[in-house]
């Protein structure tokens, strides 16, 4: 027991870089824009579905995902409200406080971008690996009903930038998003 703690302490002191540090770095982020390419691997399909577009994050809580291909669509999260606008269709408006499942999806990205550790820990148990220049967060939902939908979310990045976001769904489907930072605003 004592040994374990000693080892853990030694490792922590050696690396001197922890979740709190990553979160601090992220929380310093300015409004930023990035492009994304998302690939969905669904078991019912024999090749991945690809979509691409732009991501905009305005700290602390506005996230915009504008899909340009294959069909224009926008998803905007601002505070507790999520709005999906599809071309030729109605708006879909969701209050995140009422939909913990959708909220969990949103917070995995938004709270990470904002470096909001408490918000993230409320929904996920977090594991951090790697270094400040090449880190990887592994998020496992705490709530059972969420685990039934998504088993794990992995986010990788470097310093304050995100590089990939991967969702592993409970039914074996997978989604992989590659993010490339465009410019600071």
């Amino acid at each position: 027991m004592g040994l374990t703690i000693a080892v853990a302490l030694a490792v922590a002191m050696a690396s001197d870089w922890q979740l709190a540090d990553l979160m601090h770095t992220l929380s310093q982020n300015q409004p930023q824009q990035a492009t994304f390419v998302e690939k969905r691997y669904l078991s019912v399909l024999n090749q991945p579905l690809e979509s691409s577009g732009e991501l905009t994050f305005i700290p602390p809580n506005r996230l915009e995902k504008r899909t340009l291909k294959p069909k224009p669509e926008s998803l905007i999260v601002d505070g507790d409200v999520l709005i999906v606008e599809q071309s030729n269709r109605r708006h879909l408006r969701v209050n995140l406080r009422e939909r913990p499942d959708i909220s969990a999806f949103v917070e995995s990205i938004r709270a990470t971008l904002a470096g909001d550790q408490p918000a993230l820990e409320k929904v996920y148990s977090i594991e951090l690996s790697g270094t400040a220049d090449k880190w990887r967060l592994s998020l496992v939902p705490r709530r059972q009903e969420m685990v039934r939908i998504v088993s794990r979310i992995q986010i990788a990045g470097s310093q304050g930038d995100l590089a990939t976001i991967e969702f592993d769904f409970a039914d074996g489907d997978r989604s992989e998003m590659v993010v490339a930072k465009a410019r600071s605003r």
Partner: protein
Amino acid sequence: MPSGRLRALAILLIVFFACGFVILRTRFVSDLSAFMPRSPTERQRLLLEQFRDGVIARLVMIGIEGGDAAERARLSRELAARLRSDRQLFVGVQNGDAATAQRDRDYFFQNRYLLAPDISPEHFTAEGLHAALLESLDALSGDAGLLFKGIFPRDPTGETLKVLERFEGHSQPRTVEGVWASPDGELALLLVQTRAAGSDIEAQSRIVSHIRQVFVRIEDRKPDTRLLMSGTGVLSVASRSAIEGEIARLAMASLVLVSCLLLAVYRSPVLFLLGMLPVVLGALVGIAAVSLGFGRVHSLTLGFGTTLIGEAVDYSIYFFIQCLGGASSERFWPTIALGVLTSIAGYSVLLFSGFPSLAQLGLYSISGLVAAALAARYLLPELMPRRTRVRDLRRTGAVLERLFNQAAGLRWAALAIVLAAGAVILAHSGRIWNRQLNALSPVTQEDQRTDARLRSGLGVSDMRYVAAFAANDEQSALQKAEQAGNVLQDLVDRGVIGDYTSPAFVLPSLARQRSRQAALPDPATARGRLHQALEGLPIRADRLGGFLSDLQATRNGGVLTRADLDGTSAEMLVDSLLVRREHDFLVLLPLRSAAAGSAAGQIDIDQVGSALDQARLADVRVVDILEETTNLFDNYLREALILVAIGCVVIGGLLLACLRSTVRTLRVVAPLACSVACVTSALLLCGVQLTILHLIGLLLVVAIGSNYALFFDIDRGIEDRSQVQVSLVVANLTAVSSFGLLGFSRIPLLSAIGTTVGLGTFLALVFSVMLTRPSGYGGLARPSLE
């Protein structure tokens, strides 16, 4: 006992029992029929049907406040469960609970091939399937795709979403702790649909107290939690009990006040009781006459009609104080007769009103006044104990005499005020009358706020536009709804209307369901076409087995009937839009506007109507409920104004014929006109817009005030007129106090009449003193009514 008195008693008893007999068999109604014109147009009939059978009238909106969110959610679930178990009272109860939402999703998913709008043979050709699959792939890659991917293998063409989209067309309330809540989260919300019509106030009243009881009896309920309710039925119940309570309270107060006043003046309980005789008799005869004339008596008529007391009590006051005070009955009774005639002339025009309540009020007032006057004329003198003397009122008379003489000196000031009043009325011309429907509404401000709060939280629209028709049976009703739906969908696509709702969305006609079944391909064909359709698509055919078997299950399965909807929220939609009536079905297709900006919320109903006409659906009528109702009341007001104007002309002619002098007629009419002008301008200056009730109040001012003016007119030349003046002041005090009390009512209906008549009769006396009464003692020629 003298034979005269015996005869009087006999007549009294006969009238009493005859009226009692009629009244006991009378149907008293308190539904909206009072507001319906006697010969309604097609659209007006539809309007009434809307209020009587339509869904709006059957909804009870419930809010639970207090406690915390968890407690409110628990109470919402408990309340919903208990109300749901009562199928006798409630068609449906919704509170947004997960179980109902799950049943809804199951219903729409399992029956998607019977319900979806696009199911046709073309949809299941290789090309049709290919196009639908391509669309689904797009949906899968989108943000909502993660929600859709679970059902995709069994529903690769996306039918469930199309059905859900139509059903959930309107915005849903937000959910807190698994049940509906207000936007601020402070209220748990439920929506209840009653089986009884909203116009059935008795039933609604039972339902309201039933819901309250059920709520109160929920175990371990936190004491700070509270139930809020609203809806057409709830508000009708609330306003009826408020009016009844208010009338009872105010009537009691004014009875006490008037009794004290009369007892103080008469100092004789016998005279006081006898004085009430014409009032009671008048009211009984009035009700009996309306019952015989109209077949039913509306409670509203009774409400208005209590005001009759204000005039009937005057007759006995005049009689006791003047005749017993020594005035000659030769001159007294003709004056009373002329006063009664004037009032009859005023009220008789109401008989021609298309507004049944006004017509009933006309008949009630005329028959009541005649009975009261006859009772005062022929029964009171006989029934009165011999040698009754009214107390000596000469000292009071002398005081009044001085006061009146001084008042006469203010004549010019009064005329200046009247001119100013005229100017005020002119300045307000065009906005004197209130054409808003809710001007007559007895609903309190607080209830209106609660209603708005619950309504916006639940997203229950006011349902302003409706396309409606009747059909003989359920199936022809649904088929016609589908035909009309084709036209309406076309209008949606063209942007004429934003959206519409149809019971056929969730329960298609059997014919439509069978044609959809027939559109589904047989197993071999389906497999072949799917194979073709999948060519070039990244979808794995082996995962779509559920789709093929679901197709066959629907193709060979049964069709949906109303019973299949039990327990879903779609059940409430169907029952509210497909209304089973005694002999037929009423179908309602609510329309929503597409317009934004200045025309927001508006629909061009003529365009919708002509589109339906062209599709040979002319009997599907489109109604703008708001405009139709506003028009209806506007027409009543317009008509009443014309009738009252005619009434004024008739009164003028009558006075001219009886007084045989233009000058005397003008002297009698002048104070009435002045007080009407002053009351009107006073109301306008207070920011009150006049309603039909104010108009009735003004008519009453003329009817009561004409007596004052006539007595002052006839009074010329009488040496001792103090008794007359005392009697007029006493009569005026009773009117002002009883109507003045009504004026303090919180209910607009009552306060409108109260303020108008209270102020008006007072001014009528003041102006009569100034303008009709001769100043000083005069040796003028003695005019009379020959």
